[in-house]
């Protein structure tokens, strides 16, 4: 039985009948799934039936911080939000930091499950044990920052922490996000799920605190973690002052900063225009997440032209890719403005940017015309058109109505060969690394349970050259199946479950993460873990998530890349000539399925593997022998 870290309670809120009930978190679920992504996948598989419409009341939104969240373990105010994604029709999971995750724990909950659909626009307040359903008709239509402030004013308490949707989520855009303060649960269209439930916002205020099972063990484990962070060559002072945009410089150097809808990677490399030196001229301060001594989250202010005076958090590397490289825009201030716009309107800035870049290529190829775009000249590099189009997408107006559901659905509606230019895997728009020059990173995109997701199995060995668990040649396909399994399982178990910021994992703890998590789990929760047991949690979560997707019809045929990445070699830069051929993919997938214990033909987990992971009931449901 756990004796710290966890609050021990699950809060289940039903919007249809306006009820809230508290359930006990079992010790077995805590041991088998730890928290965060583990809880999200477990409850999604068990409670959301196959084949449901993700935008129906049958879908559920599962907010799950981890056992470290709200404790003095640094950099752990993180949570996952899990639902069936309306963008991929598979496991949809987004992560976010900020203060909301810790506040949910202080209010007394390890998991918040939202069910049903409210009859009319609603927001809920959770203040410790009290849950109230409130009329949101007056705030329906507000952008996310105004929404949060109005709720705080209405409740006469500025200390509520709020997750909410903007106009995009209200209009069920399948690339809508959930915002908390300036942080986003960005990907997989979870804002649309919230919108489909007529749920504008969740406001949380807690006064509790979390027990630490063994103060003595905790002191030792925490000091070891802080020591590793201090020894990182990059966390202090660099990363704490710059945040993620240094990766623009890095990926441009590697020739993998995707450009112009992935048609000009290595040719359009705007490191001087939107790399870290340029961006630091716009930096005015930082806004760390709760309990984070690093504080990578930077505030930057646009200073020129029509964008002067617009403030944003970031833009993060991914946004500099999606609203910069991907669209051919190298005007920094316009990207700051577009990032802010996405946050205000509640759009995932990655999917929004990829969708804009997709529309730009269609326009340049004549598949979309001025008549289609309502007069918008959607050429690559047109930052004014980009900012205008983001608004149209969020409000489903004009050409935005076609694009509001992401590139896969848009390409099917547009036809005329548009599918070839839709850069997605399983429906999720590609994030910011041209994986033709980073093969394990690519294999993780192809096999991740959430589609093309950089957060599932980030190959830091290839992107940053960190030699853990061993040095890796980014341009080779050899051994990438085994490496991808390691990346996915260890990252899941040590970052996404406990929940720990992935940047700390990548930059300070990669080599010791399993031991670090095991030590902290025992010290915080009292549940004994070996490093091997921690890794096994990651494997369990990835297999259960795969099983959810198999139940939805996923097979080996879905684990692949857009045609462009398999047929068009990179035209310039340090990875010139690279692609991932059909044969390359086959070799990597065969190895990956083999080390995973999945069927080589179907990609379905074997009964033996599921039983080994304590998931026999899953094998029964899938009917695997």
């Amino acid at each position: 039985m756990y004796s710290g870290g966890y609050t021990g309670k699950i809060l289940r809120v039903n919007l249809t009948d306006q009820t809230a009930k508290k359930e006990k978190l079992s010790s077995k679920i805590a041991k088998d799934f730890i928290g965060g992504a583990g809880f999200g996948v477990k409850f999604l598989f068990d409670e959301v039936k196959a084949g449901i419409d993700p935008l129906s009341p049958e879908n559920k939104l599962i907010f799950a911080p981890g056992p470290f969240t709200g404790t003095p373990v640094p950099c752990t105010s993180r949570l996952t939000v899990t639902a069936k994604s309306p963008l991929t029709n598979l496991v949809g999971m987004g992560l976010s930091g900020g203060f909301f995750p810790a506040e949910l724990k202080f209010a007394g909950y390890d998991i918040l499950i939202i069910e049903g659909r409210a009859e009319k626009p609603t927001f809920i307040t959770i203040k410790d044990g009290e849950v109230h359903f409130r009329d949101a008709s007056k705030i329906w239509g507000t952008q996310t920052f105004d929404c949060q402030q109005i709720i705080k004013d209405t409740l006469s308490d500025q200390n509520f922490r709020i997750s909410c949707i903007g106009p995009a989520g209200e209009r069920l855009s399948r690339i809508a996000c959930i915002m908390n303060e300036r942080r986003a649960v960005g990907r997989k269209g979870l804002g649309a799920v919230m919108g489909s439930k007529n749920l504008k916002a969740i406001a949380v205020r807690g006064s509790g605190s979390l027990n630490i099972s063994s103060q003595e063990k905790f002191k030792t484990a925490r000091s070891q973690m802080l020591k590793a962070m201090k020894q990182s060559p990059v966390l202090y002072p660099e990363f704490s002052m710059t945040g993620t945009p240094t990766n623009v410089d890095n990926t441009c150097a590697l020739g993998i900063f995707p450009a112009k809808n992935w048609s000009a990677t290595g040719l359009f490399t705007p490191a001087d225009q939107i790399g870290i030196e340029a961006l630091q001229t716009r930096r005015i301060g930082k806004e760390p997440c709760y309990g984070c001594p690093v504080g990578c989250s930077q505030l930057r202010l646009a200073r020129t032209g029509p964008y002067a005076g617009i403030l944003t958090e970031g833009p993060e590397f991914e946004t500099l890719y999606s609203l910069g490289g991907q669209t051919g825009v190298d005007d920094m201030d316009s990207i700051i403005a577009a990032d802010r716009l996405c946050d205000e309107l509640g759009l995932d800035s990655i999917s929004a940017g990829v969708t804009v870049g997709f529309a730009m290529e269609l326009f340049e190829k004549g598949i979309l015309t001025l008549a289609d775009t309502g007069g918008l000249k959607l050429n690559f590099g047109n930052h004014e058109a980009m900012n205008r189009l983001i608004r149209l997408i969020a409000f489903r107006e004009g050409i935005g109505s076609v694009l509001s559901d992401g590139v896969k659905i848009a390409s099917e509606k547009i036809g005329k060969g548009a599918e070839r230019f839709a850069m997605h895997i399983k429906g999720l728009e590609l994030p910011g690394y041209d994986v033709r020059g980073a093969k394990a990173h690519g294999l993780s995109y192809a096999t991740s349970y959430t589609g093309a997701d950089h957060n599932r199995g980030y190959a830091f060995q290839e992107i940053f050259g960190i030699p853990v668990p061993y040095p890796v040649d980014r341009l080779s396909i050899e051994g990438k199946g085994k490496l991808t399994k390691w990346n996915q399982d260890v990252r899941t178990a040590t970052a996404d479950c406990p929940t720990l910021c992935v940047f700390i994992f990548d930059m300070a703890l990669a080599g010791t993460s399993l031991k670090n998590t095991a030590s902290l789990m025992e010290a915080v929760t009292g549940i004994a873990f070996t490093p091997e047991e921690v890794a096994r949690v990651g494997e369990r979560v990835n297999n259960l998530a795969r099983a959810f997707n198999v139940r939805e019809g996923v097979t080996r045929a879905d684990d692949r890349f857009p045609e462009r990445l398999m047929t068009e070699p990179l035209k310039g830069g340090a990875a010139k000539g690279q692609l991932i051929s059909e044969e390359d993919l086959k070799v990597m997938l065969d190895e990956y399925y083999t080390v995973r214990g999945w069927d080589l033909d179907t990609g379905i987990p074997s009964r033996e593997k599921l039983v080994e992971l304590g998931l026999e009931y899953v094998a029964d449901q899938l009917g695997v022998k």
Partner: protein
Amino acid sequence: MIKVKIYTIMELKKVCGQREFELSIPEGSTVRDLLSLMINQWGDQLSVRLYKPGSDSVLPHIRLMVNGRSIEFLKGMETVLQDGDEFSMLPLVAGG
């Protein structure tokens, strides 16, 4: 002589003054030779950012690449450079 394109980022770019530039080196030069030449040009400012103190071992967080491939997968410091090669010196950055 052959020409090699040098690509740097972050603090190494600041030392060298440019993100991309060309250097002429004798035919048959290795990565080790190129680095010696560069240290001669930029002195301690460069060497302290490249090497462990008091040694000629490259710091573990500096990635050296030839044509996009880490030199540990080529012939390390003895990798022979060819005319037109791109040599990258990339300190560790963070964030994704």
